[in-house]
């Protein structure tokens, strides 16, 4: 299983969303085999005021997906927020995002395994 995060403009998502599903004759949607689950997070709020109301709503539409295999047509829309600052994850699958992140950024501080005592010295 692969956990990927994406951002789209509204127009991009309107175009791409139908390609992720197949439809039967009654219009019932089923995800294409490459995709296990889609969660449309929507426009993420990046800042709140004192009353808790959103003051900075992202203009990008966020979508998380669990993939059975990579989907090439989505690669241009992948985003990689820091692993300790993600807006959403799939229950019990937190580590899957870290795995995807570390494939993308293997040299990140989140991904480098200390190899010696010196690496850990303060």
């Amino acid at each position, binding site marked *: 299983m692969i956990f990927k995060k994406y951002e789209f403009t509204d127009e991009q998502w309107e175009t791409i969303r139908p390609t992720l599903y197949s439809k039967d004759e009654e219009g019932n949607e089923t995800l294409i085999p490459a995709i296990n689950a889609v969660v449309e997070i929507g426009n993420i709020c990046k800042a709140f005021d004192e009353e808790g109301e959103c003051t900075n709503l992202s203009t990008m539409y966020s979508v998380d997906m669990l993939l059975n295999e990579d989907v090439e047509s989505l690669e241009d829309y992948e985003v990689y927020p820091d692993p300790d600052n993600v*807006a959403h994850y799939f229950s019990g699958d937190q580590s899957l995002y870290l795995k995807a992140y570390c494939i993308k950024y293997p040299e990140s501080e989140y991904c480098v395994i200390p190899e010696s005592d010196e690496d850990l010295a303060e």
Partner: protein
Amino acid sequence: MAEATIQLGGGNWAGKSDNILGYYKEGERFYKQDFTFSRSTSGTRVNSSGLIETANVLSSELVTNGGFDTDSDWNKLNGSTISGGFGTVIAGGNVEAGSSNWSLNQNTVFSANKKYKVNFRARQTSGSGKFQASRDYYFFIDEVITSSFVDYSFIVDSGSLNFTGNLVFGGRTSGDEFEVDNVSVKEVIQNNIPRVSYLNNSNGSLILEPQRTNLITNSNSNSLNFTLDNVSMTYNSIMSPDGETNGILFEQTGSANSNSAYNYGLTTTDGTYSYSLFIKAKDSTQFRFYSSNGASTLVQDFNPLEMTEGILSGNLNLKFEDYGNGWFRVSFTRTLSSAAFHRLQIYPDRNNTQKGVYIFGLQVESGGNYATSYIPTSGSSVTRNADVCSITDVADRIGQTKGTLYSKFDLTEDSAFTIIEINLGNSTNNRILAYRNASYIVFVVQVGGAIEINNSTLVTFLDTNKIAVTYQTDDFKIYLNGSLVKTYTSGSIPSGFDTIDLQDNYLQGRKQSIKDLKVYKEILTNSELTALTTL
């Protein structure tokens, strides 16, 4: 009565990753017939002790010689020893400072991207510095421990930090001595584990739920994403429905009956939202839910000291579910359409007497007009994926020209869901299906895509129901709760049944609660059908 050729449930539940145990009986012997199950995330249920837990199974033991029966399998540094059935840990200093301080360790117990349950017992026999247990450089425990053995047990997620996988014991102060014993590490497998819920039900029921996301990013911490206005939330105040002491005391501290906790920043995306919160009475006699969908504001008060199972009529039609030990899950739904804002507010004491209640586990989920099982969150919104369950390649277990299908099921909040289905190749083209649609049983028979029967019967569903469907060409009967409710005298049936599908392809992602399911190759007699379906 003939023996069922496949059974599921009936109080006999066993699950593992990707499977739930179906079975059949021949003579005095039982044979397994596993149903396949998937849900590519973890999910919670109410276990047989009545507590909410993440459904899981444990792997085999990953630690070798965790009882220290022999002087082997562990790396000993700084003078540490193994003798007398204990591991004696001689501290070499902070284990975080380097592997030379890993006084007693075992290599590569842990792997990346997994969860583990760690158990051991430990005591301090010399010195007063902190005892440390870790995976490599990352602590499980870094604290002063007693001179008497104490049992430790916790779950660790290996994926949140990077490490090479050693289980390590040590101590911060060089020369301190500790003893450890009964060391155990097992992988905790949570994904694709079927969930049998025992909520108010000692025999258990298999729950199948749709994909849902808890939008509250701190479901039981950080004020549950609320802003507090002259109210307080005191964490870890009482045992919660998950059995831990993590229930929150929610009290009025001000002097106005408007004192509340509020979240005015919920998402305004169109859709139907369900809100749920576990509440246990303390001394408040008037608790309030306030909900605004941007177009209308609704409030409903109730007395926590008088909570009972059921729906309390009012502006929000609050639903109360009894979780035991005084805890009730209280839920309601709202629909948003082009909302300018979306607000949720709770008041501990509208009587303005500085009283309160206990609360736990706030959940706001979109996508349906009922709350689903609790999805814990901590810092992010979290999605539980849909449950999927069926059994294929069992043509020899299904009557090909005639048979009886039986199910005992709960009437869930979902207005439509599969009751029972057999088909060919997990397809809708060749199937016999009975499903709920509001107050109707819809019965569908399709052969090669052509509809032989597609008819609805008005019935009275109870909270729990027993249904039996018999089938053969030109002869179909439906019994519900001890009565014959429908007969069909014409219609062909498909050939080649090989699948028992708990969720018809058109009814995926519906909430189901299945207590018992049986398939017979025979058509049971009318008296047998009556007896079988009588509650």
